C-alpha cells in the first residue's frame, strides 16, 4: 500500500534521538524532578509519552521494555500518557530505556506539568486540524456527490460526472493522507505488535474504499464512494476527538492538583539571624530548607510552620473554601494558598513524595489498572477482529464469483460495519468520565475496580469516629442547676478552661465563646490559685470565689449545699461525657459533651436504607456512645468496643454470608478492615494519604459527597452495561446484513461511526 511507503517520511520518530539529549537523562541533577528512589538500587521515573494512541500501544510499550535487562517494572497510563518505569541502577541506565522507546516510535519526556501542557495543546491542535480537514472535505465531496444521487437517468452527462469525480478525488486525498493518519498508524502499530486492534479493519476499509474509488475515477467504470469515505473518516475522528476531550478533562481535574505548586520559592538561608530570602527553583528545595511564604503566594512544598499566624486556603485538597488557620507547628500542604500574612515554613517533603504528588500518583495508579470488564471487552474485541478479517476474505471471495464489480464494496461494508470500535470504547470512556467527575468532588479513586464493585455492594460498614462523626468534641446539652445565670456559668467556664489544653477544655471554651455576647466583664482570676488535677478537673479562685470544673466526684468535694448528692445521683448516668461546674456550696451546672454527628450522616444512611442496602456501625468506643449514634441514624447492626481484628472478622463474616462490603473508615486505625472489605473508602487527611491502601479516598470527609459518589458509581455501571449491550448487539446484527450485500458502504460507515459516537456520548453523560 502506498501509505506504508510514504509513512517513513511523514512520521519519523518524534523522540529526542540524538546522543547528547539522551545522556542528559542520566544526569542526577536533571533526574531530581521526575525520578525517585524506590528501594535499594531501584529507581523509578515518571515519563510523559508521545504517540500513545490506543490500548495496543500500551501493550507494545510494556512488553518490549520489560524485555530489557534491568527493567523491573513498566506501567503506562492511557489517560495521562504517563509511564512509570522502574529499573535497577546497576544494570541499566535511563537513557537506554528512552532510546528503546524512541526506536519503537514513541517519544519520552520527563513528566513535568509544563510539558504536559505543551504536549496536550499541540495534540489538541493536531486533532482539531484533522477534524477540520475531514469535515470540510466531507462537506465539499458531498456537494459534488448530490447531483449523481438525485439526477434522473440521462439527465447528468458523463463528462460532468467525471468532472465531479475528479474534484471529489482531489479533496479526498488530503483526508486519507492526513486526517485518517491515526487509523493507519494504529493499525500499523498493532500489526507490528502482532495484535489486531480496532484500527485494523477501519484502516483496511478506508484503504480499500479509496483504492477502488480511485480506480473507478481513473478508468471511468464502477462506483465511487468518496462521499461515504470522507464522512466515515470525519465521524470516526469526531468520536476519537470527543474521547480525547473526555480524557483531557478527567486529566485536568487531576492536573490542577499537580500544577498548582509554584516553580519558585523564597529560601531563608540564614534564618533566624537574617530574613532576607533568595529566590530558588522549587525543584531544588531539600527537606529541612526554610522558606518565607508571603501572603497571596502558594506554598512551594509540604512543610511545617515555624513562625507566623495565617490562614491557608486548602480548597485544592479538600474542596473546602473556608481558609484554615495555621500557627507555628501546623502542617501545610504544598500548593495551598497562603492568605493573610507571611509564614516561615520548614520543608518536610519535596517533589514526588509530597502530598499532592501522592494523590496524583494514586489516581494514576488507578487509571493504569484496567478493570476486569474493560479487559474482557478488549480480549473479546481482539478475537472479534480476526474473525471479521476471516469472514471478510471468505465473503469477498464468494462475491468475486457472483458479482466481481460489487465484491470490493461488500468487503468495505463488512470491514467498516463490524469494526469493534464501540466495544473497545464502551468501558474506558465511561470510567474516565466518572473518575474525572468524582475527582472534582474530592473522591479520588485509587484502584481500577473500585467504581464497578461499589455499584454492586450490598453492605456498607462505617467506622464511627471521624467517619460518621466529626472526630472532635462539642457541647450537646447544658443545664444550669444553681442560682447563677447561664452567662455567669459560661464566663466562669471560659476563664477556667482557658488554662487547660485538654480537648474537653478546648471544646468547652469554644462553646462558651460562641454563646457569650461580647463585650463582657473581665473576671479577675487569681493566677496563683489555679490547680489542675489530671483526670479530675481544674480549680481556681475567680472574683473571690472558688470554682471547680471537672468530674462529678471532684466537684462534689466542695459542693455541699442544697443541690448536693440527691440530684447528682439522678443525673449522673449519661451516654455522654459530662462535665460539672461547682462552687463552694453548690453544683452550678453540667455540660454534656459528645463527638457530634456530621450533618450529612443521617441523609447518607437514609438514602442507603432507601436503596435497600444494609448498614453497619463498627466502633472501638463504648456501647452507650455507639448505641446513641446508631439510634440517631437509624442503624440496626452495631458492634461496639471492637478491636481492629474483630472489625476485620465482622466484615469477613458478612462476606462469608455472600455480601459485597464497602468499608468506610478513617484509613489509619482501620487498615486491616479496609483491606478485608471489597471496596474501602478512607477519609483522607493530608499526611497519611501517601501510605493509604484504600481503594478510594474522600479528601474532604463530607458524607454528602460520598452519597453522590455512590450514585455516580451506579450510573457508571449502568452506562457501561448499556454501552456493551449496544455495541455487542450492533456488531452481531450487522454482520449478516453486510455479508449478504444489503449494506451500502455509506450505510455501513454511518452505522459504525454513529454507534461509536453513541457510546462515547452516552459515557460523557457521566461528566455532568
Amino acid at each position, binding site marked *: 500500500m502506498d501509505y506504508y511507503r510514504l509513512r517513513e517520511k511523514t512520521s519519523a520518530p518524534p523522540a529526542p534521538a540524538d546522543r547528547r539529549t539522551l545522556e542528559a537523562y542520566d544526569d542526577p541533577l536533571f533526574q531530581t524532578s521526575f525520578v525517585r528512589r524506590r528501594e535499594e538500587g531501584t529507581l523509578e521515573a515518571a515519563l510523559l509519552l508521545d504517540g500513545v494512541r490506543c490500548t495496543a500501544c500500551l501493550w507494545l510499550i510494556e512488553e518490549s521494555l520489560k524485555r530489557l535487562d534491568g527493567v523491573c517494572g513498566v506501567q503506562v497510563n492511557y489517560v495521562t500518557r504517563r509511564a512509570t518505569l522502574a529499573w535497577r541502577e546497576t544494570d541499566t541506565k535511563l537513557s537506554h530505556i528512552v532510546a528503546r522507546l524512541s526506536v519503537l516510535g514513541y517519544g519520552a519526556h520527563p513528566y513535568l506539568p509544563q510539558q504536559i501542557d505543551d504536549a496536550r495543546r499541540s495534540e489538541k*491542535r493536531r486533532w*482539531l486540524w484533522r477534524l477540520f*480537514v475531514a469535515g*470540510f*472535505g466531507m462537506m465539499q465531496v458531498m*456537494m459534488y456527490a448530490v447531483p449523481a444521487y438525485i439526477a434522473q437517468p440521462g439527465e447528468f452527462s458523463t463528462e*460532468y460526472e467525471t*468532472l465531479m469525480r475528479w*474534484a471529489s478525488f*482531489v479533496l479526498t486525498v488530503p483526508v486519507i493522507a492526513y486526517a485518517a493518519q491515526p487509523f493507519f498508524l494504529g493499525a500499523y502499530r498493532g500489526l507490528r505488535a502482532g495484535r489486531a486492534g480496532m484500527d485494523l479493519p477501519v484502516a483496511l476499509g478506508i484503504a480499500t474504499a479509496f483504492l477502488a474509488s480511485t480506480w473507478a475515477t481513473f478508468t471511468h467504470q464502477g462506483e465511487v464512494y468518496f462521499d461515504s469515505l470522507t464522512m466515515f473518516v470525519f465521524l470516526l475522528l469526531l468520536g476519537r476527538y470527543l474521547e480525547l476531550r473526555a480524557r483531557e478533562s478527567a486529566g485536568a481535574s487531576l492536573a490542577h492538583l499537580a500544577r498548582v505548586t509554584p516553580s519558585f520559592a523564597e529560601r531563608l538561608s540564614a534564618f533566624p539571624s537574617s530574613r532576607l530570602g533568595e529566590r530558588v527553583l522549587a525543584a531544588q528545595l531539600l527537606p529541612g530548607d526554610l522558606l518565607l511564604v508571603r501572603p497571596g503566594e502558594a506554598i512551594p512544598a509540604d512543610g511545617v510552620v515555624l513562625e507566623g499566624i495565617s490562614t491557608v486556603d486548602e480548597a485544592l485538597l479538600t474542596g473546602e473554601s473556608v481558609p484554615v488557620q495555621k500557627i507555628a507547628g501546623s502542617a501545610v500542604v504544598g500548593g495551598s494558598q497562603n492568605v493573610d500574612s507571611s509564614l516561615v515554613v520548614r520543608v518536610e517533603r519535596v517533589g514526588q513524595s509530597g502530598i499532592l504528588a501522592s494523590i496524583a500518583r494514586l489516581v494514576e495508579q488507578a487509571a493504569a489498572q484496567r478493570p476486569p470488564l474493560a479487559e474482557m471487552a478488549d480480549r473479546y474485541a481482539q478475537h472479534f477482529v480476526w474473525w471479521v478479517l476471516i469472514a471478510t476474505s471468505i465473503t469477498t471471495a464468494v462475491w468475486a464469483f457472483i458479482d466481481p464489480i460489487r465484491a470490493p464494496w461488500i468487503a468495505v461494508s463488512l470491514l467498516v460495519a463490524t469494526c469493534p470500535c464501540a466495544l473497545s470504547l464502551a468501558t474506558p470512556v465511561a470510567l474516565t468520565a466518572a473518575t474525572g467527575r468524582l475527582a472534582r468532588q474530592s473522591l479520588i479513586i485509587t484502584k481500577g475496580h473500585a467504581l464497578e464493585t461499589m455499584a454492586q455492594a450490598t453492605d456498607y460498614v462505617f467506622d464511627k469516629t471521624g467517619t460518621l462523626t466529626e472526630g472532635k468534641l462539642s457541647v450537646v446539652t447544658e443545664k444550669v442547676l444553681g442560682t447563677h445565670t447561664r452567662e455567669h456559668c459560661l464566663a466562669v467556664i471560659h476563664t477556667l478552661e482557658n488554662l487547660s489544653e485538654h480537648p474537653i477544655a478546648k471544646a468547652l471554651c469554644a462553646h462558651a465563646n460562641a454563646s457569650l455576647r461580647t463585650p463582657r466583664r473581665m473576671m479577675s482570676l487569681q493566677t496563683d490559685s489555679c490547680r489542675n488535677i489530671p483526670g479530675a478537673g481544674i480549680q481556681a479562685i475567680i472574683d473571690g470565689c472558688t470554682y471547680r470544673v471537672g468530674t462529678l466526684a471532684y466537684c462534689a468535694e466542695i459542693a455541699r449545699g442544697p443541690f448536693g448528692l440527691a440530684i447528682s445521683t439522678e443525673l449522673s448516668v449519661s451516654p455522654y461525657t459530662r462535665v460539672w461546674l461547682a462552687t463552694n456550696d453548690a453544683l452550678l451546672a453540667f455540660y454534656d459533651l459528645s463527638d457530634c454527628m456530621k450533618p450529612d450522616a443521617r441523609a447518607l444512611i437514609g438514602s442507603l436504607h432507601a436503596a435497600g442496602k444494609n448498614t453497619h456501625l463498627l466502633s472501638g468506643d463504648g456501647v452507650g456512645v455507639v448505641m446513641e449514634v446508631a439510634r440517631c441514624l437509624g442503624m440496626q447492626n452495631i458492634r461496639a468496643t471492637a478491636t481492629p481484628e474483630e472489625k476485620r472478622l465482622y466484615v469477613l463474616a458478612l462476606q462469608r454470608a455472600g455480601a459485597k462490603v464497602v468499608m468506610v473508615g478513617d484509613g489509619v486505625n482501620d487498615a486491616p478492615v479496609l483491606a478485608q472489605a471489597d471496596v474501602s473508602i478512607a477519609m483522607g487527611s493530608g499526611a497519611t494519604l501517601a501510605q493509604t491502601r484504600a481503594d478510594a479516598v474522600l479528601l474532604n470527609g463530607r458524607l454528602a459527597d460520598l452519597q453522590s459518589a455512590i450514585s455516580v458509581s451506579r450510573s457508571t455501571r449502568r452506562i457501561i452495561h448499556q454501552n456493551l449491550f449496544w455495541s455487542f448487539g450492533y456488531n452481531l446484527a450487522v454482520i449478516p446484513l453486510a455479508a449478504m450485500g444489503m449494506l451500502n458502504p455509506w450505510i455501513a460507515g454511518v452505522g459504525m461511526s454513529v454507534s461509536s459516537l453513541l457510546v462515547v456520548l452516552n459515557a460523557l453523560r457521566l461528566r455532568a
Partner: protein
Amino acid sequence: MDILYLLIPLSLVLVFLIGVVFWFALRSGQFDDLEGPAFKVLMDDDGKKR
C-alpha cells in the same frame, strides 16, 4: 452547464483557501480553550487583564 468547468475548480480553490485561514487560526491559538471563554463573561475583572 459549461459554467461547471469554472465553478467546480473555483470551489476547490475556495476550500483550500478556507483551509489555510483555519490553519492560521489554529496556529494562533484561537481554538486552544474551547470552554474557558464561555465563562469569561461572568468574571468580574473589568480593567485588569488576565
